[in-house]
């Protein structure tokens, strides 16, 4: 009788602890967002998102963050296009051409799982060695290339997951009607389109927020670049550099940038969830 009571009490204690742990995680998310909003909102203004800084980012008291916003956008658009160009063929190859239990397919998946875990500072350092080797300076091009390396594993892993879920019968039916494998690429892509959008949104989130990879490669500037060979400012570096300034107005700009980045990432995360739900509804 007594040990039944003990076991009930133990059950209750641990269930309580579990609820506390889950709540702690949820609360920490709110604490982060509240801290960023409380510091960033008072210093937000229309100038912040519509003007470039005047008079140097360490000294400038006037102006905003337009250079970093546009720069981040350039980097993300460039690296997503480049990333899709490389990752779609790889994912399609391991799913359409290779048999289900192929060693090559499994090895490819494993290697991108592992590359996914490589920290962005290593990609940054690698990008930097390539730049030195090719004689490129810090530039939009170098930034795009490095961020592309960073997001290819994310694109491949998440697109692979949705393409794997396409029913095998769909492929078999098309092949039995005489289609070649490359001719079923299009219908399959159409089938998984929402999944690809989710993958893209995830990689945009990762690419737009990563500082360590662009630190070596993209440089920083107060103006908006007009060619691929010019350096470019990015939002994460705008936060990182301007926060270390002793001037209050410049620091304010860093907090405003943190708020902008957080809002962008929140929107992306909600959009990704929306699209993946839409996808699971249309699943055959």
């Amino acid at each position, binding site marked *: 009788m007594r040990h039944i009571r003990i*076991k009930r009490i*133990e*059950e209750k204690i*641990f*269930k309580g602890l*579990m*609820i*506390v*742990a*889950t709540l*702690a*995680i*949820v609360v*920490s*998310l709110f604490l*982060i967002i509240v*801290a*960023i909003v409380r510091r960033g909102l008072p210093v937000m203004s229309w100038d912040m998102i519509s003007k470039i800084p005047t008079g140097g980012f360490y000294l400038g008291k006037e102006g905003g963050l337009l250079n970093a916003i546009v720069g981040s956008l350039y980097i993300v658009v460039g690296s997503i296009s480049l990333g899709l160009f*490389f990752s779609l*063929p*790889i994912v399609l*190859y391991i799913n359409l*051409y290779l048999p289900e239990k192929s060693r090559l397919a*499994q090895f*490819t998946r*494993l*290697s*991108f*799982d*592992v*590359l996914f*875990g*490589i*920290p962005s*500072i*290593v990609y940054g*350092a*690698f990008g930097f*060695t390539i730049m030195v*080797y090719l004689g490129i300076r810090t530039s939009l091009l170098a930034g795009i290339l490095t961020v592309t390396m960073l997001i*290819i594993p994310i694109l491949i892993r998440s697109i692979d997951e949705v393409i794997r879920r396409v029913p095998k019968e769909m492929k078999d039916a098309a092949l039995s009607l005489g289609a*070649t*494998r*490359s*001719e079923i690429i299009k219908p399959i892509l159409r089938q998984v389109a929402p999944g690809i959008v989710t993958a893209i949104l995830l990689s945009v989130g*990762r690419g737009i*927020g990563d*500082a*360590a990879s662009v*630190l*070596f490669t993209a440089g920083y500037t107060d103006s908006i670049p007009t060619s691929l060979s010019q350096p470019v400012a990015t939002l*994460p570096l705008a*936060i*990182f550099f301007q926060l270390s300034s002793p001037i209050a107005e410049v620091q304010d700009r860093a*907090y405003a940038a*943190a708020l902008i980045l957080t809002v962008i*990432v*929140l929107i992306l*995360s909600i959009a990704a*969830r929306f699209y993946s739900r839409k996808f699971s509804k249309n699943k055959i």
Partner: protein
Amino acid sequence: MNTIRYNKYRQAKEFLIRHIMLLLTLVSLTFAILIGISLYYKSVPILDHQSIWGLLSGSSWRPLKGEFGFFPFIMGTLWVTILAVIISLPLCLLAAIYLSEYAHPYIKKIVFPMIDVLAGIPPVVYGVWGILAVVPFISEKLAPHFVEFSTGYSILAGGIVLAIMIIPLMISVFIEIFDALPGGLREASLSLGATNWQTIKKVVLRKSFPGLAAAVVLAISRAFGETIAVLMVCGNVSEVPKSLFDPAYPLPALIANNYGEMMSIPLYDAALMLSALLLFVIILAFNAISRLVLIRIERNFAL
């Protein structure tokens, strides 16, 4: 006649596409090797200069005198990483058990998106949060009880920020592992009169131990390589830390912080590339091992 010609064209197109895709896939597999080789090639000058053990165990870091001792940075990384795992492991384990074994689907529907959001917050924003909230909390509220003075920029700050950063990864792999366990095991235990918690303790946790260990290794390697957030809150003093309130200088922060000046001092860039190589090799090994364990688990449990 025309159909034959058309089919020939289709076959040629198929051949071409197939081989381009194969080529891309094979090239992508050499990517990791390429990173390793180029970082090694860049760090050869310093390896010629000094032995690898001498570099790893040396504790004096004076680039101008040509002294490159990595020991303080390695210790800084270890302290911060271990602290982060100590903080987040119990939280993640308890929350993951709750979410996969107890929670109503309705609660999962609320909590999962939040974990996704937490995963999506950029490192630099975690760093800003660390500066706004964690660092002042440590220097004003916590440190006075334990030490005479701390700026707040410390191992503890780095550990707390990192702990929250690795929560999403750890918790989602934990939940995947629990969900992969066959339900029959739980039912067998429950039908013998065990309570939910006894079943979890004696069946679920024991059965999923290898997977949980792999997930922790994965989280460790994530914490190991995190750069910007720890750079912003750790204080960056190149001495071996002695207490939680001491500043530390983790390896990734060293690379990121000194990039500007490294080109003008001989061997400096080689030393920094060597630290990137160290990070790369350690994290590659950790990741490969834990992914292989996770793949094996998935295969064994999926019937």
